[in-house]
């Protein structure tokens, strides 16, 4: 029996005891508290030893909070804005404006669906070029009104399809990368689930990139990686082990600034608590970034990427 099954079994037992207490008014409080303790220890142990593949699976679960969950909890008076003004409104990304503790901000979030039906509507969080162009339009608007930008990253990758190529998927991502390096307002990106390839980077080229503890961020999905390198997408699990895609890996590599600890059971189990943690960190950091001179902000942003990985060559 693996850890996950053990947790499941204990959970069920606890549920039974709760029921019994209610129905037959027998006092099981001692048993319950013992079991609860055991469950917590087991969970703590389990969630602190997740393999990279466990994490990939965890963030792909339908219980994982999506961008909208956080936007609703973190922002006051959120107003959603639609469309790229060129082709259409890409539902795989949502954007808009709202207050972060009285600071007006622009928020952009790659949006997976909570249900299968919504997932189909949201294209599983895979953006078309119009999605990246909508994001850029809103970021430029933020710059005009001196609003900081918050991005929630959660995508397996940019969508692969005929329409996406016809409308310039590569150009759309490239344009975002170049424009984001020049935007005169602070940009903070938080990887909340899956950060896949250039499709994630296109809204994560800002001043700070943070990852939730169990989220992953990689050059490609493990499936795609295995397919390219080993011509076998079923080796995704093996790929995840060598890809260095966990939050801790990226922090060690210097590719991100912060790992945000998740509550017990992951953000999946306690979305509100998770949102509160993110909110507090965002407020603090945005206030600090807003104090910076624009030239300093932009120079730091440039150097963030310029200096990354500088031990990776010999000359």
């Amino acid at each position, binding site marked *: 029996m693996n850890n996950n099954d053990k947790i499941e079994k204990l959970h069920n037992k606890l549920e039974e005891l709760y029921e019994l207490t209610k129905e037959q008014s027998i006092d099981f409080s001692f048993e319950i508290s013992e079991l609860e303790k055991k469950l917590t220890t087991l969970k703590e142990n389990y969630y602190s030893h997740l393999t990279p593949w466990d994490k990939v699976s965890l963030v792909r679960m339908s219980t994982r909070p999506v961008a909208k969950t956080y936007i609703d909890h973190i922002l006051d008076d959120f107003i959603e804005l639609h469309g790229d003004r060129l082709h259409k409104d890409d539902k795989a990304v949502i954007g808009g404006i709202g207050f972060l503790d009285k600071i007006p901000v622009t928020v952009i979030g790659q949006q997976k669906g909570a249900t299968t039906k919504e997932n189909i509507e949201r294209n599983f969080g895979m953006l078309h070029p119009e999605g990246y162009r909508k994001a850029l339009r809103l970021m430029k608007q933020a710059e005009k009104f001196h609003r900081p930008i918050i991005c929630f990253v959660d995508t397996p990758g940019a969508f692969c399809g005929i329409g996406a190529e016809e409308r310039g998927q590569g150009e759309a*991502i*490239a344009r975002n990368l170049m424009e984001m390096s020049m935007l005169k307002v602070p940009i903070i990106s938080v990887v909340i689930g899956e950060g896949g390839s250039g499709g994630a980077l296109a809204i994560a080229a800002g001043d700070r990139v943070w990852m939730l503890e169990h989220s992953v961020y990689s050059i490609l999905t493990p499936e795609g990686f295995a397919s390219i390198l080993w011509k076998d997408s079923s080796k995704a699990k093996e790929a995840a082990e060598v890809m260095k895609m966990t939050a801790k890996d990226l922090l060690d590599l210097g590719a991100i600034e912060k790992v945000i600890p998740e509550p017990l059971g992951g953000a999946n189990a306690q979305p509100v608590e998770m949102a509160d943690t993110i909110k507090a960190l965002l407020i603090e950091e945005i206030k600090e970034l807003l104090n910076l001179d624009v030239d300093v902000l932009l120079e730091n942003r440039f150097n963030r990427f310029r200096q990354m990985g500088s031990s990776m060559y010999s000359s």
Partner: protein
Amino acid sequence: MMRDLFKKTKYVQMPIKQKQVDIIPEGVWIKCPNCGEILFKDDFDKNNGVCSFCKAHHRIGAYDRLSQVLDEGTFVEMDKELSTLNVLNFPNYEEKISKAQEKSNLEEAVVTGIGQVGGLSTVIAVMDSRFMMGSMGYVVGEKITRAIETATKKKLPILIFTASGGARMQEGIMSLMQMAKTSAALAKHHQQGLLYVTVLTDPTTGGVTASFAMLGDIIISEPGALIGFAGPRVIQQTIGQKLPEGFQRAEFLLEHGFIDRIIKRKHMKEELHKILLLHSKEAFYE
């Protein structure tokens, strides 16, 4: 039995394999990988790697490209010695690198430097698909970034010839970060009002398309070059239907408005010279 003797047997017709093989370096004769015609190697070389029958523009090495475009003896290479270290300890990566170095006689998948086109100075970077399919890891991103920064500092234009399968898998997230790094360096060049021309050659896909390849003030392509974000095989697997004829070829991108011009290899130098001249200081005074 007798009947079998008169039966017309249908033989399977073998199509000519469109294998993306390197043009066989030795030997007098070579076979065009596109149309299958047998070509005299000297003619093929004189023709700059273009098949004289089907006009297919085959992949060529970075130094051949440089000699086709730059004035003789003007090229000064930069960062030639920069080579990749496997700091992430990806299995078998060193072996792959040494093999690629042996095969291509290059340290990495891009050659950068300064040279002249018809007497006009420019920074130039040329990618080479023979080196791990021109994939972009840290060193490729770094060499291109340094080339862009040199152009910005010296107030020169930059030409980049792309040829790449995309970001290099073995360097993981750090390969991805090269997309942001090169794009940010280009933004600085752009803000100085300097010219950036990209020439997309076969193949230009993935992370290179989604960064510097698509950011040129002027984007040129060679005929028939494969250009896209996702590779055709991946798209076909994703959508489960056959891709239309000519999909993701240079002509397709021209039609959809993502490149400015398609230029044949034999006219490339002349075309680039004209563009450089139109953006040079001399253009204002003459």
